[in-house]
């Protein structure tokens, strides 16, 4: 069983913190660098357990990721964490030159990606990170859909040499997956629901909304396939081509600018393998705004990051497809 049978929510950051502690127990090479956000990132748990392996360098992200690079040069598996607004927001150069170019064993795991940051507003709503990170050679980009995926992917990236960027969300969200360790592979998308009339390819928080959209469409007689494309780079081109061929229309959904993110990556793959209409759902190249926690759903509504919008995109893509 790939999907969870019970309906519950869980915290991605908590899952990250727990996974780090667990990894640190058996592998003394695991170290973590934080930037005055360790409580929020839940890496503090790791620091409490292994204080000598936790380095809080304060609000200095360029230094943060470069220190992580140095740790990895000396043989450590370095996790570097703060908010997505600052990693990669403030240090794309260091990530590119100091980590990716020499293929260092640094894992950038960040939270507060996308609009769901909420009250902090646009300055903190990182909606460009997939675009910038996936354009850097050697970098791999992961955007897990729930806490279960986080738990397993953290272990996978810790044991896979080289640089990774993984973005988590701030709010707790719906648990999609049952707890199967073999459900996740870098470079492979997961088909969560099969369908024949169209495919929704989503990542992160939009995966649960994609499932919701598929359900709604099903009631209208449209059979929708739903893919969780948590591995945005490397991306599962074979699966994308297969979906294009078998369902004839694709909608993508992401909590990111529609430029350069998952929608961009999927479009690139579709164009070059089996061209079919694609419709991207995401932030439409605009900055976000503040919203209190209880207003987040409305915020997402206002910016079109909803199941309704995904369903509309599916209809649009299908209407442009071969009849």
């Amino acid at each position, binding site marked *: 069983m790939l999907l969870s049978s019970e309906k519950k929510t869980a915290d991605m950051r908590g899952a990250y913190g727990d996974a780090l502690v667990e990894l640190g127990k058996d592998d003394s090479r695991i170290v973590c660098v934080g930037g005055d956000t360790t409580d929020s990132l839940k890496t503090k748990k790791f620091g409490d357990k292994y204080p000598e*392996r936790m380095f809080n360098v304060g609000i200095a992200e360029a*230094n943060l990721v470069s220190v992580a690079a140095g740790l990895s040069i000396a043989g450590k598996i370095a996790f570097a964490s703060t908010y997505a607004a600052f990693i990669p927001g403030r240090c794309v150069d260091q990530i590119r030159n100091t980590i990716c170019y*020499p293929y260092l064993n640094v894992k950038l795991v960040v939270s507060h990606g996308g609009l769901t940051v909420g009250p902090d507003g646009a300055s903190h709503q990182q909606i460009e990170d997939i675009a910038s990170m996936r354009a850097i050679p050697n970098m791999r980009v992961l955007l897990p859909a729930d806490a279960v995926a986080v738990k397993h992917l953290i272990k996978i990236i810790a044991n896979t040499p080289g640089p990774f960027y993984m973005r988590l969300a701030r709010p707790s969200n719906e648990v999609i997956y049952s707890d199967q360790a073999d459900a996740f592979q870098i470079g492979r998308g997961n088909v969560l629901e099969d369908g024949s009339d169209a495919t929704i390819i989503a990542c992160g928080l939009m995966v649960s909304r994609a499932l919701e959209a598929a359900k709604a469409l099903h009631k209208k007689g449209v059979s929708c396939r739903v893919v969780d494309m948590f591995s945005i780079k490397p991306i599962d081109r074979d699966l994308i081509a297969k979906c294009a061929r078998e369902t004839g229309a694709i909608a993508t959904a992401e909590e990111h600018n529609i430029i350069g993110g998952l929608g961009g990556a999927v479009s690139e793959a579709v164009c070059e393998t089996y061209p079919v209409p694609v419709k991207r759902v995401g932030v439409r190249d605009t900055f976000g705004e503040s919203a209190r926690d209880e207003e987040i759903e409305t915020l997402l509504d206002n910016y079109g990051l909803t199941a309704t919008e995904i369903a509309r995109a599916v209809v649009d893509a299908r209407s442009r497809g071969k009849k």
Partner: protein
Amino acid sequence: MMIIVMGFNMRYLDLKRKVRDVRMWAIQGIAEAGSGHPGASFSAAEIMGTLYFRRMKHDPAKPDWDERDYFINSKAHSAPGFYSTLAVAGYFQPEEVKTLRKLGSRLQGHPVRHSERQKDHSVPGVEYSGGSEGIGLSVGIGIALASKLDGKKNRVFVLIGDGESNEGQIWEASMAAGKYKLDNLVAVLDRNRIQQDGFTEDIMPLDPAKDKWAAFNWQVFEVDGHRVEQLVDALNKASQVHDKPVMIVANTVKGNGIRHMANNPQWHGKAPPKRQTEVLLEELESECLIAPSIIAGERENYENKIRKVEREGVDMIHLDVMDGRFVPNTTFFADTIKKLRRSTSLPFDAHLMIEKPLEQVDEYIDARCDVITVHAEACTENEFKEIQDRLIANGISPGIAINPETDVPEWLYGCLHNLDVVIIMSVNPGFAGQKFMPEVLPKMVAVNKKLREHGFKGYIEADGGIDATTLQQVYDAGARIFVAGNAVYGGGDIHGAIIQLRHKAAVALEGKLLNHATQLGIRVDWMKARKHILIPYANELGIEEELHAVK
């Protein structure tokens, strides 16, 4: 296995020569490439050389040796100098430096961390991919933290530039190193005061650099970054510091080594024309050292005499040890040198005019001389080899001296590999103040030629009656170390005397380089590039009108 662990073992002249070789390879690489950064390569040459050839624990045969010291070159545009340093240290063949910046070369414009994935674009020994400024210190911190975590005894050395100190990240790193009390981290600031657009203090002032680093909880030392003895001294002190990272502020001259490039912002990132390469190499090879002999002049305490010439920036202190038997006079012995040692970090160039040097050499080793020269007339081949071995084992430059009527013994040609200096006496040793014997000049020319043919890489030292009137003659005969006694201490004006000696050395050099340029058919080009340097020597070189006409 070539593991180098440094004590006080500087082997001064060998270190100077290696750094000279680094500059020579670097300029060839830059000239071949048609681009690159000679300025930064040259300002940092002594810093990198002292680290790689003396201070760092590393093994070119095992670049990933677990216990190695790390070097992070944060100012990675000094790549030509860095690559040449690695090559001279033994990481790869120096010839490869000529592929610098070319398509398909392992020597990328900015050095790339060596790994299996990057083996076509990097060379062993490069730990860090630089190019973007201000990052390396943070990386060094990461390595230092990991070393502490693993309980390792190794050290991390980071070279940073003053231009890149504009970057905020330098100061983020500065705070972090202080926080973690990283006493296994030593940063060296190449304070050459020039960045791409001009002088640092115009673009973005860094002064007071020392105070800034001290305020960030670093232990700060300040040195002349072209004085290897000061660098060695500071690095030794750094290893005694606990609970603090160390910053060595190394005052340097950008482009140091080629006079028209020195301290000239134009040469930050420009290659010299390829046709000038040979002349530039000659200039680099012609580095001169001035070594005042403290037995000259009036009797006063030697500390004072040393202090007076130290102020004038002389290179070494020449110590004439005479035992009253090998030569008729008696001066001082190892016990005196030992006391003087405390008064200066200037290298001691001890010239032992003593009967049985092998019996006494250990005393002079113990007194921490930097160069020890014994007389060919005072030892057999086996005795000299024994002396040489002991000196090399203690990191002291070995030398041999010959009297005016003596020739270089044939057996010396079997000892050249570890020979750093040959003193060719131009007076009969025994007293200060004697008259220069011009008849040694042809001998100096012949000896120098023959030694070079047999692979001698050290220095010829002229000793005896060297002054402003004779310096140029011994220079032209091949001498590059000048012992000056009366010429320095004989009159009242030490400052003026040393300026005059340097001026004469410069005239000799400029004349030689101009001749070389003329032979290559680039006389006018050379004068154009060199005009501002040549002006003070134009009269003595007889080129006043010609130089005036050069636009």
